[in-house]
């Protein structure tokens, strides 16, 4: 019984990681940059989602506003930050992204205060008992959202024209341009989608913990980086599976090897062990 419950908790945790990580892996697949500032959009989504819900009483509106705003900011980040740096060595974009993330964290603190923001009356908290396990509605929604969104995304990538266009741009931007696919449009779409997803993840985490803080993006950002390597850079399905596996390992790890290793370190320990055995990661990159 306990094992099943731990397993389910792992899936829930992994689901939140997956929705954040997928944006990161899409951006990496496209531009080969580690978009650390992605976590700032996660936090932005959480703040906006909670703020709008508190003001209007509608969670759906909150999610919508959060996703749209983050998507637009994400596109802005591409245009202002990454596009000018495309022909520079990779560390330039990485450090610029880190600087941007630090700035965003600070802006959140200055604008919203250091104390954190909570729902005035948190939605989706009703408890459902499934086979003796208590689950809150938001927890079930998290897993369902994850499967639907990421499954959908993977399907789009494989089976639709847009998806094929995206994959072509990743493989060879110039060639795909010859075929009439506009790589720039693809990039904007990817940044919009990835950032909107990060914002949704932010709102989900806010529902799960009822606390939005300026620094809440830090831990997911590190873990997502480990996840996208494990899942194969640019591989949506791989990222989904890696996220869930990591969530489950963390759930069991914190209970049984918590004495030896910190929770955050578990993610990286897992990563390093996998890389030592299989240097290309769990799954191949796109």
């Amino acid at each position: 019984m306990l094992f099943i419950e731990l397993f389910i908790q792992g899936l829930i945790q992994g689901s939140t990681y997956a929705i954040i990580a997928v944006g990161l892996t899409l951006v990496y697949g496209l531009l080969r940059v580690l978009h650390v500032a992605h976590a700032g959009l996660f936090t932005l989504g959480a703040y906006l989602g909670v703020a709008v819900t508190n003001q209007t009483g509608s969670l759906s509106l909150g999610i919508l506003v959060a996703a749209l705003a983050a998507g637009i900011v994400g596109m802005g980040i591409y245009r202002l930050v990454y596009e000018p740096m495309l022909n520079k060595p990779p560390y330039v974009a990485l450090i610029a992204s880190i600087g941007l993330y630090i700035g965003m964290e600070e802006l959140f603190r200055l604008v919203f205060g250091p104390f954190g923001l909570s729902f005035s009356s948190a939605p989706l908290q009703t408890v459902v008992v499934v086979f003796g396990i208590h689950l809150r509605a938001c927890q079930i929604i998290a897993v369902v959202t994850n499967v639907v969104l990421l499954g959908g995304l993977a399907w789009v990538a494989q089976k639709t024209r847009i998806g094929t266009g995206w994959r072509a741009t990743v493989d060879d931007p110039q060639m795909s341009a010859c075929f009439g696919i506009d790589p720039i449009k693809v990039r904007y779409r990817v940044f919009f989608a990835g950032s909107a997803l990060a914002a949704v993840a932010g709102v989900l985490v806010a529902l799960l913990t009822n606390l939005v803080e300026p620094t809440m993006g830090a831990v997911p950002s590190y873990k997502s980086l480990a996840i996208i390597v494990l899942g194969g850079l640019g591989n949506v399905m791989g990222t989904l599976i890696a996220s869930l596996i990591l969530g489950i390992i963390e759930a069991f790890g914190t209970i049984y090897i918590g004495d030896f290793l910190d929770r955050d370190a578990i993610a990286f320990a897992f990563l390093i062990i996998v890389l030592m055995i299989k240097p290309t990661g769990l799954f191949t990159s796109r």
Partner: protein
Amino acid sequence: MKKLRWVLVLCFTFSCFGTGWASDTIKIGFNAPLTGFAASDGKSSTLGAKLAIKQINEAGGINGKNLELIVYDDQAKASQSIPIANKMIGQDKVVVGISGSYSAPTRSAAGIFQEAKIPYISAYAIHPDITKAGDYVFRTSFLGEVQGRAGAKLIGEILGKKRVVMITLKNDFGKSLAAGFKEKAKDFGIHIVNEYEYSIKDRQFGAIVAKVKSDKPDAIYASGYYFTAGPLVSQLRASGVTCTVIGQEGYDSDKFIAIAGKAAEGVIITTSLDRDSKAPETADFIREFEKLAGYPADMVAASAHTAVKVAALAIKQANSTDPEKIRDEIAGISLKASTGTIEFNSLGEVSKNVQNQIVKNGEWHRHSVISDPKLLAPPEK
């Protein structure tokens, strides 16, 4: 380019001299985490200290002069607090230093203040080694171990619960609380079923909650700060764990109740701020702080407020700005403050009652008081 150079020179000059202009005030140094992950506690403690300064100055100051609080941001880091301590002593010429920060920066700064023979008061940092830096260092709040022992008495004797699960925050705060609790658990008939640890960055406790549920304890002793305890308690209740949860002063903020909502009802903590206190020092502080800050008082604000009051009284009684005289006055002081009666032992630790507060109808209220000098005695060296 030339303009830029002039601007830089001006900035540099200002930063050098800016602090030295008002020279007929008595300067008290204050380090707190104003930015970084601990910014919320830094903000509260700074406001608590500023309130004390304001109240003292409005009442006429000390020995005819006004007090001035020199505040520095140490980001809760030891490497930041060292130059800050040196700056306070060397440049600002403070007569007393107060730490409104966490243990690591306080510990580093304490060593420097001790060497310079300037009194240093830790408002709420709990690392035992802080006061071991020397006879110039004092602490106005409980040592972690002492509070842990009080928790054992609260659970075992006052509440009568015997099967306890511990959820411990993995930092100096959580670990020293756990150590104190474990030390005295047997004395009060407590059987510790299991102990689980979590990191200060965790907000989702699904795995621990599942395991605790399967342990079926009578009570849970959980250490943490409001930003970890809030989510933890909320998730415990949501998963069907109904037993009493006991916390400590890290929970002591209205934010805890805001985050946990209904789940906060019935949570009891060991702390030093009694919201229902009729004592004028406490009631006044609570009222005035909310007026100044715009939000209800919490423990770090109260502790910083107390520390400033101790410093001010010592300076007044010494009737001088000689650090050695001030230090002697602090050592022998007896002051009724918002967080209790402050008197120091030979190590610079306080011995005072523990206020147990419970959340009732969405607010903190008095539950009980532990006044057991033997149990709560801090170490002498």
